[in-house]
């Protein structure tokens, strides 16, 4: 391709993006009326964590990737038609 280089992404960044892609791909099979809602939760979660978590905090990121993969597997099952998110306030922890 002419003149432009893609920014170099680290392996873990690629994993995250691939997970994000997997989520977005899965939403296509969901009922259209729920889809926008599901997508907004997914992208909200990814964006929140992208700002919240230090990019060198690999342990935390890897944990989230593993958790995300499990959640994606759940979302993939046909009978899950919608998502909900609950807010757990971290500051209340001891």
């Amino acid at each position, binding site marked *: *391709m*002419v*003149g*432009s*280089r*893609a*920014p170099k*992404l680290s392996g873990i*960044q*690629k994993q995250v*993006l*691939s997970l*994000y*892609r997997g989520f*977005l*791909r899965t939403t*296509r099979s969901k009922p259209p009326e729920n889809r926008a809602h599901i997508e907004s939760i997914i*992208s909200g979660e*990814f*964006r929140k964590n*992208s700002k919240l978590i230090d990019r060198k905090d690999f342990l935390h990121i890897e944990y989230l990737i593993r958790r995300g993969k499990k959640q994606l597997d759940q979302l993939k099952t046909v009978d899950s038609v919608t998502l909900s998110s609950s807010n757990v306030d971290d500051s209340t922890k001891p």
Partner: protein
Amino acid sequence: MAAVPVTCVRLTTSMHTNQIIGKPSTLKLVSFGRATSGLSRLSRFQISCAAKPETVTKVCEIVKTQLALSADSVVEPDSKFSALGADSLDTVEIVMTLEEEFGISVEEENSQNITTVQEAADLIEKLVEKKNATA
């Protein structure tokens, strides 16, 4: 309104061609074509590498909506997604939307190489062609 991006497209594709022809590596390619004049060489190359203006315009539109850019902001084929304020998550979203709009499937490794509208449009044309060939 639609006329503006189209003229942009023409301008930049011809720039692209000049850049490519300026490179010594394309000399090999030229000799394959057995072109007798420089002019036909130019048009030959344009056909093989540049995406259709409609595709580029459509990609521009999608990018605009996806990044929630204002209607009067200019998205040119050479615009880098990052320069338009897109991060890597936005880029994934753009590629996913393009997949749906054009009814194609972009390979994972390819989608990470897309950084400009032009690159996206070129890849889309290639994939649409492939899809039509197999269908």
